[in-house]
């Protein structure tokens, strides 16, 4: 049976329209990314702005990442021990925790923490600048707003997220080593499992994921900020969307990259 809505469109038509809209948005998103990072880069002016953004998006997130890392380490160790102890040799707990942290939990959880912090902030900041005509003002000053506002933010996140991922993995690893003895696994056995069964590919694969996630978070925040038209309500909506879109993109690209890197 073909359902016809009040607009006269069948379910199939609505589905197609929705699909077209999503496709157009994806194309628009990648065009936006291209415009933001396309050459030529004015390094003399861009580098200081990238540093400033690295401080705002990366350095100031360090306490949050340390806090998150501690709990990621605790939870991962507890759950891995719960699942494996008594079934396989104890060093498998160290291997499980190490590989999970490097391949999946480190990059994805750090990306979620940073996405929840930076993407809405960027969307709101750029959205407010649009509403208050500051972006138009940049154009009248012969300043390219994409290069001035987006390029430093996107670069800063692409550079700082891998660093934050490494920090989270380090803190989580140390926390795991500190608590594992209380679960009945000796530290030596745990460290043996962590170091002998983890490959360099695991580490670099995770870091590569973080680079892509950083790029996605930065681009979605800036893209949705630039899309704001109207007032404060639209700015709020853009901030929420930036968070949601970043989270979805992280999950989708996590799957794509897992398939490419670790399958």
């Amino acid at each position, binding site marked *: 049976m073909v359902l016809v809505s009040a607009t006269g469109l069948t379910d199939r038509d609505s589905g197609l329209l929705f699909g077209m809209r999503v496709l157009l948005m994806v194309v628009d998103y990648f065009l936006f990314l291209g415009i933001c990072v396309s050459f030529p880069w004015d390094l003399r*002016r861009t580098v200081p702005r990238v540093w400033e953004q690295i401080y705002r998006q990366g350095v100031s997130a360090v306490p949050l990442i340390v806090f998150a890392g501690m709990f990621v380490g605790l939870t991962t160790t507890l759950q891995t021990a719960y699942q494996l102890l008594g079934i396989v040799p104890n060093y498998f707990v160290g291997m499980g925790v190490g590989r999970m942290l490097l391949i999946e939990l480190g990059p994805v959880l750090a990306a979620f923490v940073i996405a929840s912090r930076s993407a809405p902030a960027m969307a709101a900041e750029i959205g407010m600048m649009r509403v208050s005509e500051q972006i*138009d*003002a940049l*154009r*009248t000053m012969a300043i390219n707003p*994409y290069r001035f506002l987006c390029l430093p933010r996107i670069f800063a996140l692409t550079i700082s997220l891998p660093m934050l991922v490494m920090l989270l993995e380090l803190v989580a690893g140390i926390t795991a080593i500190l608590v594992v003895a209380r679960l009945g696994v000796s530290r030596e056995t745990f460290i043996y499992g962590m170091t002998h069964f983890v490959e360099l590919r695991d580490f670099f694969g995770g870091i590569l994921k973080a680079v892509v996630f950083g790029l996605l978070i930065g681009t979605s925040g800036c893209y949705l900020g630039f899309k704001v038209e109207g007032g404060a309500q639209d700015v709020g909506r853009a901030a929420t969307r930036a968070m949601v879109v970043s989270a979805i993109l992280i999950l989708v690209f996590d799957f794509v990259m897992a398939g490419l890197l670790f399958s």
Partner: protein
Amino acid sequence: MILLEGVTKFYRGESVLKDVLWSVPDQGVSCVLGRSGAGKTVLLKITAGIVAPDLGRVFFDGKLVRYGRFANNYELMRDVGFVFQGGALFDSLTVGENIALPLKEKGGLSNRATEQRVQEALQLVELANKRALRIRELSGGMSRLVAIARALVTQPRYLFLDEPTGGLDPVARERVIKIIGEQVRQNRSVVIVTHDLELAQSIAGRVFLLRGGQLQLAEGNIKKEDYESSDA
């Protein structure tokens, strides 16, 4: 010269500008009068190359202005100074940093020359002692004057002002009028959109009325009813 040819702009399905033919000369003051919502700001932004018309074309010194993300109008923009109604100043920067921004981004000037230009701009608007203040620490009138200083610091050929005297006290208003007069003496072209009839009559060489989306040259004695009452 800036030329608008058959410019039409729609807003929510209705045309705010209809087939506008308009030229902005290289010198003198052109003033557009219209009631609130008549499309004055849109007209000004289209003329300055910030907003794309839905129909029609804009020529800047004979060159067609292109729009869209890939368009590069930045060379044209170097000749434009624009004062937005709300100021559009960067609140994370100080007064001095706001004014210096276009010069620093443009490049080509030494730090000393930049400093000198910023100082001159601040003196022009009589705010030299406010240089270190943040934008949020300024009154509305002062913000307007800082916006004017920022627009003038690059020494543009065209100065666009959106409601330059709106909401200003008489002293600040006089100061703005004085600054506009000085720009005319320096052979700049000044374009003002306003609903301030007194301002238009006191300084404008050419006054236009924007009614019903159409632009008409005003001749003779203009009355408020001519542009405020209703659409043409």
